[in-house]
Structures are given as C-alpha cells and as structure tokens.
C-alpha cells in the first residue's frame, strides 16, 4: 500500500507553532513583572527617569559687550544641543557690576552630569606655543615643567588658523589604538604652518588649551611628506571624546567666564509606574475595540487584525528595548504606545492611504528628529521605529490569522 504524504500542511503547522511560540515569548518579555523569566538574560526595562537631573548655573562673563554675550550664549547652546542635552535654556541676566555680564543656564538631562558640565565650564581656547629657550624640561626637580604655560612663548598660531579638529582613533607608538585630535588647517595656511614647525624639528612645542599645555614633539621629517598634526587625547571613553570634539569645533567663546553659582533643581520628569500604566493602557485599548465592535464601526476581521498587530507592535518594541537594554523615558514610551495603537488601527482601516500616511509621517518625524531639540527629537525617533514596526506587524498579523483560519 502506498501512503501519500503531503508535507505542505505539516510544514504549515510547524511554522505556525513556531510563530505562535515566538509571539508568546515576545509578549512575555514585553509584559511587566516578567523580568525574572530567565536567570540568564536580564529583561528589565531600563528607564532614564531616575537618572534625570536638573541644574541652574550662573555664569559671569568678563565683558559688558552685548555681541560677545550673545555669541557666548549661542556657542553654549550649540555645544549642549550637539551633545543632545534634553533641555537647555540660556537667559541673559542683568548685571550690577560694571564690565561684567551674567548668563543663567538651566539644564535638564539624563546624560552624565560631569560631561555636560564640561561643555559649560570650559572656554576651550587653544593656541600653539613654543618652548622658552632657558627652560629645561629634563630637570628632575621640576618634572612637570613641560605642562606649565609660563614655560612657553606664545606664537601667532591659534584656533583661528584651524578649520576643524577631527577626533579619531589612531594607532599609537605602542601598537594600541588611542584617540587623537587631528588639527586641520585652512588650505592657505598649510604650507606656512609646516614652515613654522620646520624651525622646531625634534623639539617640544605645546598646545595650550585654557592654560593647560599638551606637549608635542615635532617630527624630524615634518617637511618631507604629507604632514598630519595629531595631538593625543587623554581618554578612552567614547562620550568624553565626543565632548572634546564638540568643545574643539563649536566655535570660539570670545570672553573669559567663570561659573559663579550652581543650584540643583527638582527633576522636571515625572516617573510613571510602568506596571500600572501598562495594565491601564491594555484596558483602554480593549475598551476602544469593544466600542467599535458593538457599534459596528468596523468589521470583526479588521478589528482582529489590527488588535493583533497592535499587540505585536507594542510587544516587539518593548521587547527590543528590554533585550537591547536601551534606556527610555517612561512618559515617552507611554505616548509612543498610544500613537502605535492609533496608527495600527488607522493603517488597517484606511488601507488605500496606508503608504501615503506612513510616508508623510516618516518624513515629518525625520525632519523633527534632525531639527528638533531634546525630548522632541527623542520622541520623533521612537515614533519612527514604532510606526515602521506597526506597518510590519499588520503584514505579520494578516498572514498569521490567514494561516490559523486555513487549519
């Protein structure tokens, strides 16, 4: 007797079982209180809420010139924005002292406070200096002589001669990779700079940054090949290297300034109970679907597809955040989930406009991501991800339901 074996339905069963298992796993990972589902992997949702800090700084500027104050304000703002600091407000305060001006800087961020403060506490003005003839750097009684600005003579070379300082990892003398600052000159100054350095072949010169010297030994072959003026950056930390890059390239603060006052402020970000809000959102979502079903505003098939797609979208998004340990603000996550619920339903209900809606939303959110500030940009980024997941989930949901029906 010949047994006819059709592998297609069996494969269909198996693929459906695998898809169901993955779906259940994703939902379990995303749900609150399932963090301890495995001892091997951490499924905690990392939130930024607790690390959010807020502080007010009063800066005293050694000038009463309005343009210089305005320029300082612009540069500080540019620096903080480049580091994606969530909230920055810089106000000009009236100063009672003659020849002085004041700026009030309010910062709220989840970023490392010490790093953010480097951006507002440093003027970061750099200039090239040459060693004084009568100073001996090999003197064992003054081992730090090479770091003191008073042991160097000023030159005409400073920040104005360099168009950009590029921070990158290069191979150092001991074979390991370290951060270096590559000083890129304006094209018309390149030859002149090499000629200047040629006078100090083999000697130590210094780059003074706000009075602190970084020594640099001029190579013997400075004028013989394509020359690269690279100064070591004393950090291995990527964020710190980014800070140094921002400080170098954000423009020149025209006046000396000091931080006169620092005041801690209460955090403006409220922490939301992730467990309670998850349960509440599920109830609200089910209520909305029941309402639409009772009042026959849509077909049960459409509602089933969009409900399943909403569950997949939100679960997948939260599961990715949990597995990748991506820190989030609970308030933004909640708002993104609300948008995802609405988007998935609207995409399913208006199939003919799905591509147009998705396209125009992605375009608008991309503009906000690049030009928006702080939370705006962060929210736009999260919403882009969740909208794309929503469009994908609708396809998964449709195929999944069709397969289940065929069995």
């Amino acid at each position, binding site marked *: 007797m010949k047994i006819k074996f059709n592998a297609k339905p069996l494969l269909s069963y198996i693929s459906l079982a695998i898809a169901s298992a993955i779906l259940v796993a994703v939902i379990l990972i995303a749900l609150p209180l399932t963090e301890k589902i495995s001892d091997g992997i951490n499924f905690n949702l990392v939130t930024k809420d607790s690390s959010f800090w807020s502080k007010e700084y009063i800066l005293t500027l050694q000038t009463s010139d309005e343009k210089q104050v305005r320029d300082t304000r612009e540069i500080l703002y540019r620096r903080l924005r480049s580091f994606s600091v969530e909230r920055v407000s810089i106000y000009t305060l009236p100063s009672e002292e003659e020849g002085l001006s004041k700026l009030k800087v309010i910062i709220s961020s989840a970023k490392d406070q010490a790093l953010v403060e480097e951006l507002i506490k440093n003027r970061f003005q750099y200039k090239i200096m040459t060693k004084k003839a009568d100073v001996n750097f090999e003197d064992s009684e003054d081992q730090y002589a090479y770091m003191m600005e008073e042991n160097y003579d000023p030159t005409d070379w400073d920040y104005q001669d360099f168009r950009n300082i590029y921070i990158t990892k290069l191979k150092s003398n001991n074979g390991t990779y370290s951060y270096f600052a590559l000083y890129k000159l304006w094209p018309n100054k390149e030859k002149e700079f090499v000629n200047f350095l040629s006078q100090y072949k083999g000697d130590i010169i210094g780059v003074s940054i706000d009075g602190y010297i970084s020594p640099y030994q001029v190579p013997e072959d400075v004028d013989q090949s394509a020359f690269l003026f690279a100064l070591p950056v004393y950090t291995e930390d990527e964020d710190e290297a980014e800070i140094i890059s921002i400080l170098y390239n954000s423009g020149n603060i025209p006046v000396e300034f000091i931080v006169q006052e620092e005041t801690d402020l209460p955090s403006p970000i409220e922490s939301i109970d992730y467990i309670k809000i998850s349960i509440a*959102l599920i109830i*609200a979502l089910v209520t909305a679907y029941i309402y*639409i079903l009772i009042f026959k505003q849509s077909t049960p098939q459409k509602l089933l597809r969009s409900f399943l797609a909403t569950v997949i979208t939100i679960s997948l998004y939260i599961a990715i955040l949990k597995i990748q340990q991506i820190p989030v603000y609970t308030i933004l996550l909640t708002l993104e989930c609300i948008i995802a619920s609405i988007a998935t339903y609207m995409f399913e*209900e208006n199939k003919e*406009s799905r591509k147009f809606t998705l396209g125009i939303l992605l375009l608008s959110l991309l503009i*906000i991501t690049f*030009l928006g500030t702080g*939370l705006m940009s962060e929210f736009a980024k999260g919403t882009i991800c969740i909208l794309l997941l929503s469009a994908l989930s609708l396809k998964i949901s449709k195929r999944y339901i069709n397969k289940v029906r065929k069995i």
Partner: protein
Amino acid sequence: MEIFLNVWNNWSLYQKVTIAILLTLLFLTIVLSVKFVTKSKQYTIFTIISLIMSAILTIVSFVFVNVVFNTTITYMYMLTPIIVLIINLFNISSSVGFYIKNKKQKKLDIDELKKEFLIDTVHLTVFLIPLFSVFCIFVTEPLLTFILLTMLVSTAVPWINYSLIYWLFHKNV
C-alpha cells in the same frame, strides 16, 4: 503677548533659526505631498487651513492654561504640537486615501467623503479619549495638565477638520 515675548527673547538665534526651518520644512512637506498625490486645489487648501488651525489651537491652549490656571509651560509641552500633528496627519491622510480610492471616478461623491471623514474622526476620538484618560489617572501635576491639554487639542483637531470638510467641500469636485 508677554508669554510669547519671553519665549522669543530667551531663545538663542540658533534656536530661532532651527525652529523656523523646522516649521517651514514640515509645512511645505505636508502641503506639497498632499498637492502632489491629490492634484486637487481644494484638498491643498483644506490641508493648509487644517495645519494653521491646529497650530493656532495649540498656541491658544498654551496661553489659556498659562493665564487661567497659572500653569508654567515647561519644555514637556513641546511634545504637544508633535502629537497634534501626528493625529492631524492621520486624519488628513485618511481623506486623501478616500480620494485615491475614488480617483478613477470623474466625480467625487462629497456626501460619501463627509461620511468617511466622520467615521475616521469618530474612530480617532474613540481611541484618543480612553488611551489618554487612563494615562491621566497615573500622573500628577504638572504632567496631568500636559496630558489633558494634549488629549483635548488632539481630539478637537479632527473635529475641526470635519467642519472644514463641510465648509470647503460643499459641491462635488
């Protein structure tokens, strides 16, 4: 007026330029996309008025809570215009979708369009109110005002659009 002057004076030139570019780009992108897809003057005018109305409503609501409830408009409120814009885009694009569906017909049935628009507006309201309401239960001031305000403005915008459709599309296109 004071609230706007304070904001304007406390913004750096960089901020002012960035926000101006952001708003201009958003406006042009949305309006030109609608114009390109529908090739309809009425739809383009509808989109322009809708965007302007939602912006005005958002600003008026900020002034209202600031003046009446003495609530400080913190930077958290910068999220409100984005959420309102997203909801508005869902609403506008659903009518564009209806237009695409009926493109082959020489005449667009305005009554059908109004009906479709009403259904979409009701659906958006049905989702917005419960989802934002449950959110309100778990937050306290100042976040509560922000959530309530965002919910009210986001819900009002689709209904403004619906009245605009009534006003603009009084005869068949």
